[in-house]
């Protein structure tokens, strides 16, 4: 055990790491502890998942039957907009930052994150930002209703007053993300235990290091984009107004220069999670570790050079379409390397199928489905047909729900025994997996057909020929939503009690957090750096 250190008493402040958590509510407000902050992030994320999910329920309810059934079209547009924003910025991103906080210091043998006070601020900006964002729904003008991509001029000339609160909420989220990313980089580069060389780091740490670079590079660009929106709206600038020499399409370029790396921000840490879980339950080391690192870096670099594949129908010159098409398709090579390595890790492994492994396998299969539909969308002439249809909706929900969200849930089941010292209920976990997986495919698979048949996205009503698939999709949606309420029950049950977890937790688990720390780990882990083989 390296948590109960017997240090020699040198250093004037040697007592400071030994205090436990403070008592009461202020513990959570003032904490500088990476585990506390990780927990805060994860609960914020879960709250946002249920909030964003409830808006998805409104969307699926309205689309259950053709015709306007339940909500006004303007309110429907608010729902699609807020659902996307809340899920991307509120559910997925904070969940990964929460995992980073909990895991990175334990995985590299560090006493805490490098900049603990700033770590607190990264989190505590977010509740304010999301309260501001959510409050727009109650405003006279209603919430923003221009889609989560907030294209100009819908978000400038024709936007409701509440858009300004949305703009500032995005600024705050950006500040939070940049500070969080800086902290991750400083922690990984500066806080590793002796012997933990870069190429010995767990892939979750590697993928987060690269994700942090993406965040620092693109969140400020997003801040620039919303700042231009703000000045276009109130101060007479004409960045996105052709009448003054600007261009609404320029908004799309700036947005997607942020937006494309953003999708990798939401999936690279997922790759890290899967790369931890598959070897444990296949009882084999990860196949092709270094190729995984290089593939992650390649994806990150390429992600900066493909943004306009979201804009094939904006009338850009053919040379641009060709370039962005080929560059986009190129990303499938390093992504393919990853999928190949996960499958090869399992080859001839002694596999067992505990709940985290089920979610990880679900990830590999369904993320690949989302990746393949992405390949189709990346082909410029084909995208002309699919653009802004339900095919796109199906595509990005396969990569984000059965991709990113599945990896987050997998990470929860994999590490929660370590965090709490309690095993989750294996039977309930398996029910959660199969319930979710059947439901999510009923929900999203028919949307491919709807899109190919021409149903546009972000529309509250549709032609009669789309009725059956929409009803099927809605039924899947309600079932999937309910499954996540069931997940909330599992989470609370696990925190409150359960079978005592061993320190190693899983027979095949490796890594400092399993090999050198108790379950649950002490409030301050690694007061003495662990030996790294």
């Amino acid at each position, binding site marked *: 055990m390296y948590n109960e250190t017997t*240090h*020699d008493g*040198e250093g*004037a*402040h040697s007592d*400071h*790491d030994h*205090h436990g958590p403070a008592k009461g509510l*202020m513990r959570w*407000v*003032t*904490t*500088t502890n990476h585990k506390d902050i990780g927990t805060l992030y994860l609960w914020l994320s879960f709250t946002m998942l249920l909030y964003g999910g409830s808006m998805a329920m409104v969307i699926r309810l309205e689309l259950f039957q053709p015709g306007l059934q339940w909500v006004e079209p303007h309110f429907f547009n608010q729902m699609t907009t807020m659902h996307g924003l809340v899920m991307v910025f509120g559910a997925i991103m904070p969940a990964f930052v929460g995992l980073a906080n909990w895991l990175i210091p334990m995985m590299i*043998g560090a*006493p805490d994150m490098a*900049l*603990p*006070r700033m770590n*607190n*601020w990264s989190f*505590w900006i977010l509740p*304010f930002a999301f309260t*501001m964002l959510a409050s727009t729904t109650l405003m006279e003008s209603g919430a923003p209703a221009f889609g989560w991509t907030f294209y100009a001029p819908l978000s400038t000339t024709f936007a409701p007053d509440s858009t*300004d*609160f949305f*703009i500032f909420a995005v600024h*705050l989220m950006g500040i939070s993300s*940049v500070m969080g990313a*800086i*902290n991750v980089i*400083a*922690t990984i*580069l*500066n806080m590793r235990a*002796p012997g933990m060389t870069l190429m010995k780091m767990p892939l979750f740490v590697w993928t987060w290091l690269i994700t942090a670079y993406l965040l620092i*590079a*693109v*969140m400020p*660009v997003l801040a*620039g*984009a919303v700042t*231009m929106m703000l*000045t276009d709206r109130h101060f*007479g*600038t*004409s*960045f996105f107004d*052709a*009448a*003054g*020499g*600007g*261009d609404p399409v*320029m908004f799309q*370029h*700036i947005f997607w220069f942020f937006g494309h790396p953003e999708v990798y921000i939401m999936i690279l840490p997922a790759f890290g999670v899967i790369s931890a879980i598959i070897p444990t339950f296949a009882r084999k080391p990860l196949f092709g570790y270094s190729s995984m690192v290089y593939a992650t870096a390649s994806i990150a670099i390429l992600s900066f050079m493909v943004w306009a594949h979201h804009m094939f129908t904006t009338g850009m010159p053919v040379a641009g379409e060709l370039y962005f098409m080929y560059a986009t398709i190129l990303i499938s090579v390093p992504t393919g390397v990853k999928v190949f390595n996960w499958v090869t890790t399992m080859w001839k492994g002694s596999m067992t199928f505990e709940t985290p492994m089920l979610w990880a396998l679900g990830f590999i299969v369904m993320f690949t489905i989302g990746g393949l539909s992405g390949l189709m969308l990346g082909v410029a002439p084909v995208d002309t047909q699919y653009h802004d249809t339900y095919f796109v909706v199906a595509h990005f929900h396969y990569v984000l729900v059965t991709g990113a969200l599945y990896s987050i849930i997998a990470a929860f089941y994999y590490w929660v025994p370590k965090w709490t010292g309690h095993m989750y209920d294996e039977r309930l976990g398996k029910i959660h997996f199969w319930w979710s997986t059947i439901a999510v495919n009923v929900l999203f698979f028919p949307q491919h057909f709807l899109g190919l048949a021409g149903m546009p996205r972000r529309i509250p009503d549709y032609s009669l020929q789309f009725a059956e698939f929409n009803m099927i999709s809605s039924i899947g949606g309600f079932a999937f939503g309910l499954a996540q309420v069931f997940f909330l029950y599992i989470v609370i049950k696990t925190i409150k009690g359960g079978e005592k977890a061993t320190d190693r937790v899983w027979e095949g688990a490796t890594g400092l957090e399993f090999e050198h720390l108790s379950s649950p780990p002490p409030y*301050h882990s*690694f007061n*003495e*750096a662990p030996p790294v083989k």
Partner: protein
Amino acid sequence: MSSTTSNEDYYVPHGTYWPIIGSIGLSLTVIGTANFLHGTWSATPIFVGLAIIIFMMYGWFGTVVTESLAGMYNKQVDMSFRWGMGWFIFSEVMFFAAFFGALFYARAYSVPWLDGASNNDATAQYLWPDFEAAWPLLSVPLADKFSEAKHAMGAWGLPAINTLILLTSGLTVTLAHWALKRRDNVWLVYWLFATVALGFGFVFLQAYEYSHAYQDLNLRLDSGIYGSTFYMLTGFHGFHVTMGATMLLVIMIRAAKGHFTPENHFAFEAVAWYWHFVDVVWLGLFIFVYWL
């Protein structure tokens, strides 16, 4: 450190109230700004919010300074600060990149396209057939909606002098660093004073240039894409110069109190890095906004 494996010397602070105070200040500032823009609130909440932010920064940095002077930070903590500051500056570079991107996009694409370049014959023909592409763009496509500028801002008057001022300040801050390294506290403060004076001098001249642009050239924020990019780029840069000069002023006061040693003066270096970043951004501005 005698032991290579001890993490004990890495200072992990106790709980802190500064972040939550900062969040309250930030939120009040932006909520106040949004309501002010809608005419529902007066400007008072904005200033209260900003005051809270300034209070937070004073307190937070004050705590860090106290801890640093008490010797609570070891080399590894110092390195965390270095990584942190370096990547913070990179994030600032990317913020400016967005606005430079808008400038290049307008100059290379949107303005020529409105005049029919590339595959945009129909755009020019059906939207504003009389529009002619030019840069700096003085005559915008829809003149009624904007206040058109009479002249563009030249490069070789005040902007050139400002370039000289900032480049000189980059030199003086380096001279201050050299003085610090040879324990010459007197010249450290003198050179820092010169740097601060040059920095605020730059801001003053920039403000003078703005008033000239508004009054004599009718070059305004709402003069179309040229005015938009001109003011947003130079405005954010001017804001950063103001911040940098203020930071230098704090460093000067700390230097006068003898806070820095040749071995331990990262606060000085961080601000010097920031100052050089501001300097480099200006060179980009001078070349692409004023000159070419």
